[in-house]
């Protein structure tokens, strides 16, 4: 193979790869949209490729596909409380939800540095290690835990989310609910605040 031809094929290879990702590799035959096409519609609210610039809408990039799928299905059924996601999630079949979840799980997670109180963050780390690290390991950045990313997530969103778990508006997994209760008993509302500052201190 001469050099020119090799280059042409290489170029075609790269562009075909790029294209197939964009077009969802269906070649237009199936009548459902690809995970990327579906996922693109979320970016207006959740940020380019699911990384939110805040201040409150959560980043969804880089979460485990199962976590994202389950959450979307919970919004769809009404099991998870929401201001708008219920209305959005009802627009998709379970297969479409799985396709989007697959797409967002493959996008790199970009933790967001936020204004935080260093002393509170330091105290929050201790609380995290004691109460939360077991299921939210590596400071809550390991997608494989399938428990939602915490460090680098938007602080106002974590505040809402934790408030809903505590009020009972949202159902936390049983063991997490127990930990939250214990934490609240020992540390009060300030304990939660400290955790949030810790998650906001990620770089």
């Amino acid at each position, binding site marked *: 193979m001469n050099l020119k*031809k090799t280059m*042409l*094929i290489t*170029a*075609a*290879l790269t*562009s*075909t790869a*790029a*294209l197939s*990702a*964009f*077009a*969802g*590799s*269906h*070649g*237009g*035959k*199936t*009548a*459902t*949209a*690809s995970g990327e*096409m*579906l996922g*693109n*519609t*979320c*970016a*207006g*609210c*959740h*940020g*380019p490729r699911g990384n*939110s*610039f*805040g*201040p*409150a*809408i959560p980043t969804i990039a880089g979460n485990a596909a199962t976590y994202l799928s389950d959450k979307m299905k919970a919004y769809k059924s009404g099991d998870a409380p929401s*201001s*708008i996601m219920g*209305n*959005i999630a*009802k*627009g*998709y079949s379970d297969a479409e939800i799985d396709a989007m979840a697959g797409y967002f799980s493959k996008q790199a997670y970009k933790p967001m540095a936020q204004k935080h109180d260093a002393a509170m963050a330091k105290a929050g780390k201790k609380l995290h290690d004691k109460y939360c690290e077991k299921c939210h390991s590596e400071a809550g950045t390991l997608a494989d835990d399938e428990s939602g990313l915490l460090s680098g997530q*938007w602080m*106002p969103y974590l505040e*809402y989310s934790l408030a809903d778990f505590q009020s009972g508006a949202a159902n936390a997994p049983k063991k997490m609910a127990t930990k939250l209760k214990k934490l609240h008993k020992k540390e009060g509302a300030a304990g939660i605040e400290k955790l949030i500052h810790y998650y906001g201190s990620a770089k």
Partner: protein
Amino acid sequence: MSNFTRRNFLQVSGAAAAATTVGFGHSVLAGSHGGSKGKVVIVGGGIGGATAARYIKYADSKIDVTIIEPNKHYYTCFTSNEVLGGNRSMDSIKFSYEHLKKMGVKVIHDVATVVEAKQVVTQKNGKVTFDKCIVSPGVDFKFMHGQTAANAETDLPHAWKAGSQTMLLRKQLESMKDGGTVVISPPTNPFRCPPGPAERISQIAWYLKNNKPKSKIIAIDPKAKFSKQGLFVQGWKKHYSLGEGKMIEYRHQTAIEEIDIKTKTVVAGVDEIKADVLNVIPAQKAGKIAFASGLTEGDWCPVNHKTFESTKMKNVYVIGDSSVASPMPKSGYACNSQAKVAAAAIVAALHGKDAPHPSYVNTCYSAITPTDGISVSMVYNFADGKIGKVKGSGGLSSADASEEERKRTVKYAHSWFTNITADSFGR
């Protein structure tokens, strides 16, 4: 994808490579440097144009993308009402093209005068050739009763395109006396941002309540109803007051018949109303270039809903406010969503592939006060050759939403603003 082996991948790619040299011929390679996959020219660097440019570059950075846009900065219409309410600065709604340029997008600051078969004619930069062209010029206005493009800049701002007129209207509100009357006249359908006029009324009411509480707003609307009406009316009653002689008076099915520009007096129905600040939002139509290029049917541009390719002109794609995409409304969210569908269709076409199956979303957030937010949303699919609403999806935020949820909604609206502008202009 299951039987997609490396072997037939290579075969397919070989065929694609052959097609690149034979099929596309010189049109793809024309005017572009080595390795280019074709040339896309985008008329209008607003929400539609900027988003399309980004998503084409995301998919294939080798595609040559040029935006033609007269202004060095873009001011978003969305959230410009918060500037009027005194809740936001002009700087916070100002965006440049620097991040797009960093992605390799070329930006020519000029006005396009006409789109022809394979080229765009500009005012100062001659002709710019393309393989594919995207037209996203927003709206143009049907001025009436003596309001003109010129006096809208000095005296009678519509502020339905953000920028100098937003500032002018804000200044007029600031210099109005307490006890003054603001007259706002929403346009007839269809127009950009259906909930926009009511959001504007809310924001101005917020400003008046906190600064000039004896003042009032009279809306003169030719239509019988408006978007998110129930939620707005609920909010107006709660935070302001609604009815004749109240802070907000909303007159339906009443059209302005005459304007005395000097005294800002309008004749509407049986009444003559002297306004201190007059904000007449004219009826709308597709951007001027769409008419000059033969892309319109009536006031707007018909398109193929799978690709947004014009049904009047091949290789030209019309997105955003100028296109006919109903049931999608003319909104920034809809336009951002459409831009990605068009970008995917164009990238596919430049690679000799079919357009992928599309999907679209719209959302409009509105802040009735800085702590009371509402929303309307919808998911759309492509079925039977056109855009349709997905049954059971979307709709209004709940009228019974708690105070906490409404407070969160304003925060979410601000996140939406940061994210959609990042998704369009980069950051």
